[in-house]
C-alpha cells in the first residue's frame, strides 16, 4: 500500500514538475518589430523554397530561418576533401545540433553576408515523392567582418538532399563536393562552407 502511495505521489510530482517549471521555462518578452527590414521567408512547400530561405537567412544573418529549414529529425553534413583535411575529425557525427550551433556562432560573430545560394545556370528539379536531390548546385558567399572590414569569399558545388517531413520540406543531407573558382579571379579556387563550419563549430 505504501508503495502504491509513493508511486502515486511520484507520478503526481512528475506530472506537476513541468507545469511548475513555468517560471524557469518562460521565454523573455520580445520587442515588437519596429526597425529593420523583416526577413520574408517562403513557405516550405517545395525544395526550391527551402533553398531560397537559406539565402534569405544568410543575407539577414537570421539564425531561426536557417534552423527552420534544416531537418528536424536527421541532418547530415559531409565536407569536401579540403575542409576535411583542414579540420580532421571535426565533421564526424555532424548533426542538426551541431549545424544549429555553427549557424548561431557564425551569425553572432559580427559579420555581414552577401549570399547567392544557386548559380544562374542551375535549374532545380521538380519535387516528387518525399525526397528530392539537387546535384551540383553552386553557392557563393561573400562575408565581411564588421570589425576589421576584411572580406572573405566561399564558393563551392554541393549535392543537397531535401526530405518531406510532416507537411514541409527540409534539408536532410548537405554534401560539399569541391571548391569552385572565384568569378573575379577564375584561377583562384575558393573554399566551401565546410571551412566556415570547421572554423565556427568550435567557438
Amino acid at each position, binding site marked *: 500500500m505504501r508503495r*502504491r502511495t509513493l508511486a502515486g505521489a511520484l507520478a503526481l510530482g512528475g506530472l506537476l514538475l513541468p507545469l511548475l517549471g513555468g517560471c524557469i*521555462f518562460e521565454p523573455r518578452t520580445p*520587442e515588437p518589430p519596429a526597425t529593420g527590414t523583416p526577413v520574408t521567408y517562403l513557405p516550405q512547400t517545395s525544395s526550391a523554397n527551402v533553398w531560397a530561405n537559406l539565402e534569405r537567412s544568410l543575407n539577414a544573418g537570421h539564425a531561426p530561418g536557417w534552423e527552420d529549414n534544416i531537418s528536424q529529425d536527421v541532418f547530415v553534413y559531409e565536407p569536401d576533401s579540403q575542409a576535411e583535411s583542414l579540420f580532421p575529425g571535426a565533421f564526424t557525427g555532424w548533426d542538426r545540433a551541431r549545424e544549429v550551433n555553427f549557424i548561431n556562432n557564425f551569425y553572432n560573430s559580427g559579420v555581414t553576408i552577401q549570399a547567392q545560394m544557386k548559380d544562374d545556370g542551375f535549374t532545380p528539379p521538380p519535387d516528387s515523392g518525399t525526397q528530392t536531390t539537387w*546535384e551540383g548546385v553552386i553557392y557563393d558567399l561573400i562575408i565581411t567582418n564588421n570589425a576589421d572590414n576584411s572580406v572573405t569569399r566561399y564558393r563551392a558545388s554541393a549535392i543537397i538532399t531535401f526530405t518531406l517531413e510532416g507537411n514541409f520540406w527540409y534539408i536532410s543531407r548537405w554534401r560539399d563536393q569541391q571548391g569552385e573558382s572565384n568569378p573575379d579571379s577564375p584561377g583562384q579556387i575558393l573554399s566551401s562552407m565546410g571551412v566556415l563550419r570547421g572554423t565556427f563549430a568550435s567557438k
Partner: protein
Amino acid sequence: MTTALRGPAPAAVLVMLLLAALPAAAQDEAAADSLGAAVDSTLASQDMGIQPPGGYRGQDVPVVTDGPFLVSLRNMPKGGVKATVQQYQYYGQWDLAAVMRDGISADNHAGWSWTDYRKQDKTIERREDQFSWNAGQSLPVTATILGNWDWSEDRTVNSASVSNLAARNYKRGSLNLSKSRLRTGDFVHSLRGIGQIEDQKSINLGQRNDFTEGTGSLGAQTGWEIAPGLVLAGRLYGTATSGTRSLGESDSPSSANGDTIGLGVYYEHGWAGGRVHVSQGNFEKRYLDYRRNFNGLIDTVGVGEGDKVLQEIEMKDAVSLEFENTMRLGRLKLDTSLARDMDDLEYAASGVGRKERQNDAAAAALSFAAGRDSFTVNFGYVYKWDDQRYKNATTNRGKQYTKGRDLAFGWYRELFQATDLTVKLHQGLTQDIAQDQFNDNDKDRLDSDANVKIDRAWSGFRTSLGFNYKQVKDIAIREARSSNNNVKDSYEIAPGYTWDLADWLMLTQSYRLYIQYTDYLYSDLPSVTRRDDYSKRGNLNTRMTIDATERVEITLKHDYNKRFNATKTGTDASGSSSYFKDQIQSTNKIELGLKYKAAPGVILEAATFRTKDIKDTYGTTTRRTTTFSGEIWVGAQVRKKWGRTSPLELSAAVRKYNAYGPSVTPTSADYWDADVWLKWSF
C-alpha cells in the same frame, strides 16, 4: 588486466593498473569504473595531442615463455571493390600479425586504394602502412613502437575546369614506455614516456605545408587510498615539441610545450559513490600560419606574398572542475553532476586576438521503480559564454551567453497483462544573449512535448497507439529580428498493428495523422508579411511479408500520403478562423521486394518501387502537376569460405540500379552498388 591493455586509451590502462595495485578494499568494481572513467576523460596526453598507441593483436593470445622464439605468423591479404552511386573504389591490403615468445608481438597493415567519383571530376589514390611492436613481458617496462605512413593524392577539376592537386606524404614513428604498480609505502605510482618523430610533405592549392618535428612527453600518476573506499589520485603530464615548418614560401622553426596537473578524489561507500576532479593545463605553440581575420578565417586577398604567412604564437590556459555522484536508496537512484570548464586562448599574430570561454553544466537524473510503475525525472542546466578581444583592440567584444535548461519526466506502467503505458513530458528552453547588445541575435526557443503511447501484445497480434503534442516557440528578442516570431503547435495520432496471419504471412499497418498550426505573433502588423498557417497530413502504410517457401521471401508495401497546406484568411466574430488551401498533394508509392536463397551462402534479390505524385496548387489560377518516379534493382549476395587453417573467404553484395523521375540525374539513373572482397588467411 590483460584485457584492459587492448583498449585504445592508455589512460584507462594506467588507471586500471594503478587500481590493481591498491589494497583489496579499494578494488571495488564500481570504484574502479568510476575512477577509470574519470581519469580517462582528463588525462593530459589527450590534451597535448599525443596519440595513444593502438591495440596489439598479439596480446589476444596466451603468453608463451618457452619454446621457439616465433610462436605464430599470420598473413591476411585482402582485395576488393566498392561501388555506390557516388563513387567506385578499388582496394587492396595486407595484414601481418606475428606473436613471439614472452608476449612479444608485431603487427603490420599495408593498404592501397583508388577512388573515382562518379558525380564530379575527382580521383583519390591512397597508400598507407601502420606498424606496431609490443615488447610484451620481455622487458621490465611496457614498451611499444608504432610506425605510421599515409600517402594520398586527391585530384579534382571543378566546374570551371580548374584543376587542383591535394597531395600529402606523412610519416610518424613513436616509442612508448610505461611502468605501473610501482609502490612506495601507501602510494602506488604509474609512469609513462613517449618519444615521437613526425614528417609531412604536402601541397594543396599550390601551397606547400611541410613539417618535421620531434616530441617528447612524460606523465606520472600517484594514487593513495586514504581510507577504505576513498582514493586520492594526482597526475602530472608534460610535453615538448621542436622542429621546422614550411608554409607557402616561408620556412621557420616550430615548437610547442605544455603541461597538465590533475587531482581527484574518488569514493564509493555503501549507497553513494562518485568523484571530485580538478585539472589545469596550458600550452604554448609557435608555428607558421596564414594571415587570419578577427574571426579566424584565412584572409590573404590583396596581401603581398611576404605578408600572407605569419609567425604565430598560440597560448592556452584551461581549468576543469567536475563533480559526479550516484546515490542508491532501495529502488531509487539519483545521479547528479556539476562541471565547469574555463579556458583562455590567445594568438600573437592572428586577428582573433584573445578569446575567453566558460562552460557550466549541472544535471540530475532520478529514477524509481515501484510495483508495476517506474519513473524517471531528468533536469539539465547549461550556462556558457565566450568573449573576445580582437588583436590591437582596447576593449572586449562583449560576452555571448547561451543558457539552456531541460526538464523531462517519464512514466512507464504495465496497465494489465501484455499492455504497457508510456508517458513522456519534456520542456526545454535555450536562450542566446549578447552582452550590451553587441549583436541583435538575442533569442529564446521553448520546446514543450507530451507523448503518450500504449502497446498491447496478444499472441500473434501486436498493436500500438501513440499520441504526441509538440509546441515550439521561436522568439527573437530584438525589434529588428522579431517580425518572424512564431509558435508552432503540432498534434500527431499514430495507431498501428502487426498481425501474424500465418507462419508464412505477416501484415503490418500503421496510420499517422499529423496537424500543425503556425501562429506568427506579429502577423497583424502591416509591416509583417507572414500569415498564420495550418497544415494536415495523413499517411497510411501497409506492409505484407510472405515467406512463400523456406527459400523465398516476398515483401509488398504500399504508402499513401495526402497533405494540404493552408493560410489563414480571417477570423469571424465568434473567433473561428478561416483558411485558404494553397496546396494539396497526394502521393502513392508501391513497393515489391523479393529474396531467394539460391544455395547455402547465396541469395538473389530484387526490388522495385513506383511513385505517383499529384500536386494541386491554388492561387489566381489552379495548377496541377503529376509526376512519376521509380526504381528497380536486381542483385545477389554471396558469402563463401573455403578451408579451415588457411581459409579463403569471398564476400560479394552486388546490385544493379535503374531509376527514373524528375530529380534523377543520369549518374543516378543507372549505376552499380557493390561491395566485393576476397580475403586469404595463412
